């Protein structure tokens, strides 16, 4: 998994690339949480999933976990550009009600 971060106008963009499954989830969580903690001044966090080639419910668990973490600091979270397969699993899970797709 490759994770790239970019900030622009108080928005933290997190670009995730690779396969988000049980094998990768813990490492991604650790890495992403570190980036979030370094950017606490940001008002919004956008998870860009365009580089995610595969995702299962471990990815849903990861996103729900980040949503809960960000909610504590009243930071809004969004998802952008999932591929069709990721979009299907995100829709089935109902996660867009917590983390809207933009």
């Amino acid at each position, binding site marked *: 998994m490759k994770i790239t971060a970019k900030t622009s106008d108080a928005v933290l963009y997190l670009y995730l690339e690779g396969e988000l499954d*049980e*094998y990768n989830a813990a490492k991604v969580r650790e890495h992403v949480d570190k980036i979030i903690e370094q950017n606490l001044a940001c008002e919004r966090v956008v998870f860009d999933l365009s580089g995610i080639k*595969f995702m299962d*419910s*471990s990815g*849903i*668990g990861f996103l729900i976990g980040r949503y809960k973490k960000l909610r504590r600091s009243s930071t809004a979270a969004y998802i952008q550009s999932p591929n069709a*397969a990721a979009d*299907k699993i995100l829709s*089935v899970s109902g996660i867009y009600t917590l983390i809207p797709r933009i």
Partner: protein
Amino acid sequence: MKNYMKLEFSAISENEPFARSTVAAFCVRLNPTLDELSDVKTAVSEAVTNCIVHAYEGKGGKITIECEAEEDVLHIRISDEGKGIEDIAQAIEPFFTTAEEEERSGMGFTIMQTFMNGFKVESQKGVGTTVAMTKKFGGNKETEVKAHAQ
């Protein structure tokens, strides 16, 4: 003619990509669409995760995947010899999880049910669990017919 394969591997998470990719490779001769193939890979990944995380609780063990293909239908059985599920009805409820603190979504069984055409769980406490799933491939048929008509 029926085609069959059996795969046995250690219940460690680094085997997940290998397991789902192997099943996907077995499916290719059934002419699935990319969406159908993606559904199978996701369902396999969910079942294998359950074996690793819940059945063996991360302590390792053996996972067996059996696949049988006939015409355009794939049957998959994913088995473990782990602790078993006490209450299957509760386990397959959406969002039910025994490991919320580990950021589990509780959506694994729901995803298997949604992404596959047939789904069944058999489990015995202390003996193990088998998830049987069926996928019927048909998405590419229409394209083939159209191609012939041209």
